[in-house]
């Protein structure tokens, strides 16, 4: 494995209008790694993902994918560079069927899953492929939001709270899917509040507070750091 990070973020500052929301965020993700951002609500986790994608436009600093600058690209070129985005609100389109939702994001490189492979991994989606996208249950919509990125051949997925509001059995299914993706060598940047879920899949953690990275540690240290985390996260 190469030592140069796949995704490199240095001194990232970002603003919502006049309000300064990210303060010099540093972040590295190596190829094949699963990295989880932890932090309270409002700590800047979702904002970090949105700033990396370029949905949040007012940014300064460095964002590189395989050494290639992303900051100067228009929004649609970021996905084409190889980043897939699964938003917190899932973003399933009501005016598209399940299968139309699945094939909506354009392919960005070779090596994505075929529609058949995706339907094997998510049999529910195959069963309901002609339903309106938003008629799916919350869990199925989350599966669909992840599945449609797998088709594109993106090398890294930004996943924003995939387990939020879902029943434990569905959370387990999503965990299985992420483990399968890790085995395939997918790189994952995860925002997650669910510790037990994050512990299972994450190789490394970053801790955010008030728009700053305050700590980072490998996954196996999570248990040993629980006291410290409880203090920062207030859980």
């Amino acid at each position: 494995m190469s030592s140069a990070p796949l995704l490199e973020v240095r001194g990232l500052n970002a603003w919502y209008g006049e309000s300064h929301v990210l303060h010099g965020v540093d972040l590295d993700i190596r190829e094949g790694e699963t990295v989880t951002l932890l932090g309270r609500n409002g700590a800047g986790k979702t904002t970090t993902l949105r700033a990396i994608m370029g949905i949040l436009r007012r940014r300064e600093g460095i964002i590189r994918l395989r050494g290639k600058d992303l900051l100067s690209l228009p929004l649609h070129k970021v996905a084409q560079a190889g980043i897939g985005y699964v938003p917190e609100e899932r973003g399933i389109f009501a005016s598209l069927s399940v299968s139309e939702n699945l094939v909506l994001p354009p392919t960005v490189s070779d090596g994505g899953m075929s529609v058949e492979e995706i339907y094997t991994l998510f049999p529910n989606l195959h069963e309901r492929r002609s339903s309106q996208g938003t008629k799916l249950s919350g869990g199925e919509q989350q599966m669909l939001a992840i599945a449609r990125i797998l088709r594109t051949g993106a090398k890294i997925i930004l996943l924003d709270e995939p387990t939020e509001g879902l029943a434990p059995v569905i959370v387990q299914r999503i965990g299985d899917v992420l483990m399968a993706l890790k085995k395939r060598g997918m790189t994952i940047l995860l925002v997650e509040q669910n510790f037990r879920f994050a512990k299972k899949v994450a190789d490394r953690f970053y801790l955010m507070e008030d728009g700053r990275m305050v700590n980072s540690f490998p996954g196996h240290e999570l248990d040993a750091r629980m006291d410290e985390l409880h203090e920062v996260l207030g859980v």
Partner: protein
Amino acid sequence: MSTIFGIPTPALYGQILIGLINGSFYALLSLGLAVIFGLLRVINFAHGAQYMLGAFVAYLLLNYLGINYWLALIVAPLVVGAVAVVIERTMLSRLYGVDHLYGLLLTFGLALILEGAFRHWFGAAGQPYAAPSQLSGGVNLGFMFLPIYRGWVVVASLVICIGTWLLIEKTQLGAYLRAATENATLVQAFGVNVPLLLTLTYGLGAALAAFAGVLAAPIYQVSPLMGTNLIIVVFAVVVVGGMGSILGAIITGYVLGILEGLTKVFYPEASSIVIFVIMAIVLLVRPAGLFGREE
């Protein structure tokens, strides 16, 4: 002579046909307006001027370059679509970040400039434009006499409306358009060039208006104000159908055209306001329009 409710049937059929013709133009024009509004959230007041421009391009092509009706039916929408693309790139696209009212004001201003310029060059009177010889004359259907050109207008507008609907509902490009209408930022974050999609959509809407303009030229003559008279009714059609609803715009266009024709038979005094009365009632009962989704 046979009658229905005391109305001679030839008169009834004649008005239904006129209603169907008007409905064809309502449908083509409101379809373009609905596509543009759905994605760009711009109320395109220049739509009537783009319709007029289509008719004038056909007129100029015929009289200065000898290009016939059939070619004009293809060339005029391309020319007007290209003009619209330039307008979108240089002016309209600067207004997406601000209140939708600015897009309306810009397109309203453009409509006034275009119509004023053509009035200056050609005068307010209509210029005749002959129907192509293949479509002149008429056929006796037994129950009524059908001028062939009018039958062609109904068929052509139906084909274009259904074709546009299929493009939007059944193709990948249409899926981009529908998805971007819901959440343009996310579609762009997936790697779709949404700014280009907006440009093409405005061009397509204007091209549809120009196509309607060429179809209209042999029926209504070519005049600088032909769009002004029509566009207010078309806006009422879009409101009744539901802002941004593609199928709603098409169906409402034809239905209101026919209702207007029938009103001319049964209560002529109300024929010029019937569409607006329907609009008022629909707005009271279903503010999002008959086919619109509540937001």
